[in-house]
């Protein structure tokens, strides 16, 4: 045995003498995420923003539907920090209340869409053959349906509460993810570690969860981060058509839509909700970036 011990540094230590603690993957990932400065800043910012929005009833200076006809379309001032809208409602207050719905819809609808897309894409890619054909034709079908008109039809028959909107957006935003996931899995499943797992008798479910999905997490995370922005925008389109969350309840989307006509004369009505959406999507992207790096052990 001694002649082939070239890479057994420290072999003198007996196995039982060494106390190696197995660091859990979650802990390693968390430590690496904390090293990604931009992602940490983005997480803190987003958490703060979300906290402010969800505490809106406690901290907002006005009621979100308090109409003040004496002070309509006022630019930012000491009394109304971000100005007022066409009905004299305080923009800051509406932004905070609107964030509750927009952030919730953005994150949950994107999660739902990503979950459905990952499930369908991984089954199609992993099992291949007939299952692949069936699921991919289903994806093509879902893709070829013009989404917006269909969403309009569905939402006009269902309640337009936030939960309904999340469902509708989630169920119509999984196709891209499923295609990307399928493609990534087609290449990952050819790796010999997948064959090794099969030779060891692993169940398909375990192979997908343990060996395949972690190796395509990049594609999934990218899809999910894009999904957040898309969901917020889709909600605003629905609001614009009067099918989203109904007024007077504010969302960033319907605030942005309401301000379109007066974009040049009262730009603050457009800029602030726009910035809110932009910053949220940007933060989610940075967090996604950090997550990708943290999950990759080679970095």
């Amino acid at each position: 045995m001694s002649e082939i011990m070239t890479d057994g540094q420290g072999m003198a230590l007996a196995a039982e003498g060494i106390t190696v603690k197995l660091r859990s993957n979650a802990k390693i990932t968390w430590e690496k995420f904390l090293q990604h400065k931009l992602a940490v800043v983005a997480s803190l910012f987003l958490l703060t923003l979300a906290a402010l929005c969800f505490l809106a009833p406690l901290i907002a200076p006005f009621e979100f539907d308090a109409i003040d006809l004496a002070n309509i379309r006022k630019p930012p001032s000491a009394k109304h920090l971000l100005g007022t809208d066409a009905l004299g409602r305080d923009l800051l207050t509406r932004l905070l209340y609107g964030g509750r719905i927009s952030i919730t819809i953005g994150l949950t609808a994107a999660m739902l869409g990503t979950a459905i897309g990952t499930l369908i894409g991984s089954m199609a890619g992993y099992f291949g053959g007939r299952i692949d054909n069936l699921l991919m034709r289903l994806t093509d079908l879902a893709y070829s349906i013009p989404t917006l008109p269909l969403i309009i039809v569905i939402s006009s028959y269902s309640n337009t509460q936030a939960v309904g909107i999340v469902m509708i957006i989630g169920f119509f935003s999984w196709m891209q993810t499923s295609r990307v996931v399928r493609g990534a899995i087609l290449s990952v499943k050819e790796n010999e570690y997948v064959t090794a797992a099969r030779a060891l008798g692993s169940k398909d479910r375990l192979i997908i969860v343990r060996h395949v999905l972690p190796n395509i997490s990049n594609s999934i995370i990218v899809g999910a981060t894009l999904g957040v922005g898309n969901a917020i925008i889709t909600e605003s389109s629905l609001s614009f058509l009067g099918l989203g969350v109904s007024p007077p309840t504010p969302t960033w989307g319907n605030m942005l839509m309401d301000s379109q006509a007066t974009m040049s004369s009262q730009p603050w009505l457009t800029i602030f909700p726009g910035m809110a959406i932009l910053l949220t999507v940007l933060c989610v992207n940075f967090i996604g970036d950090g997550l990708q790096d943290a999950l990759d052990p080679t970095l």
Partner: protein
Amino acid sequence: MLDKQAKLLEVRGLKKHFSVGGGLFKKASLVQAVNGLDFDIYQGETLGLVGESGCGKSTAGRTILQLYKPTAGSILYDGVDITALDRKAMLEYRRKLQIIFQDPYSSLNPRLTVGNIIAEPLMIHHGDMSRQDRLDFAKELLMKVNLDPSFVNRYPHEFSGGQRQRIGIARALAVEPEFIVCDEPISALDVSVQAQVVTLMEELQDTMNLTYLFIAHDLSMVRHISDRVAVMYLGKIVELADRDEIYEKPQHPYTKALLRAIPVPDPIYAEANPIQPLEGEVPSPIHPPQGCYFSPRCPLAQPICHEQSPEYVEKSPRHFCACHMV
């Protein structure tokens, strides 16, 4: 001496065909990767399986392990036909039959630590084992393959090819197998590292009483490790005999050509005896030639060779060959 030993594995008429390129409006063509294999593997021996790239040797190994469903034929392991088993019954045999891969890079999941990679077989087969016990077992296995047990926390990319190959071996050993298909385990390694890995495999064979099917295309390494050697050409075994017999008294013209092509590390000899390569290419396994598959390239081919497929028979004791001219 070997014929007194028990047969561990009996392969009978094993075929594996793949259909490729089929579509909605296109008929799939059939790749006859493995086209009728008959051989036995004895308890404790190493059977070398050699052949050119694409001759179906890896497919044969993987079909024996039921990683591919065979198109035809049977595989008897200890007398039980494992091709007929359902998933659950097969799980017991998954512990007994293992595989070591060629590519030490794609055979280890880059997202898992070495400890988790080696402990995975225990998760599947010993679900009641505690995390700590699995980790201790993984450390023991690392020692067995001459690696530092503290490597359990590291990731595969931190290791060299030879070290990775040892990790792959440790994973296969975790289930305490009886039979291991070694799918070109050293072809991707440096020559100096090859010897180390082969030595390790030989040691493990002695201590753990393993039986190997050693797939390779390096004839000198196969001669070193094998007890018997089988030569494959286009999905069929053309010759199978004891190691020294096949290297010293080859019968099949293809085996002879392969042996002539072994490079000699002596420039003066090499210059005086230039290698005469075989004419032509290996035919496509989609359209194998009529008669003997080797006939289009065979220097001895007669009319019968182009018409009739030769039978694979025991030409002399323990020496099987498929050739009309022998």
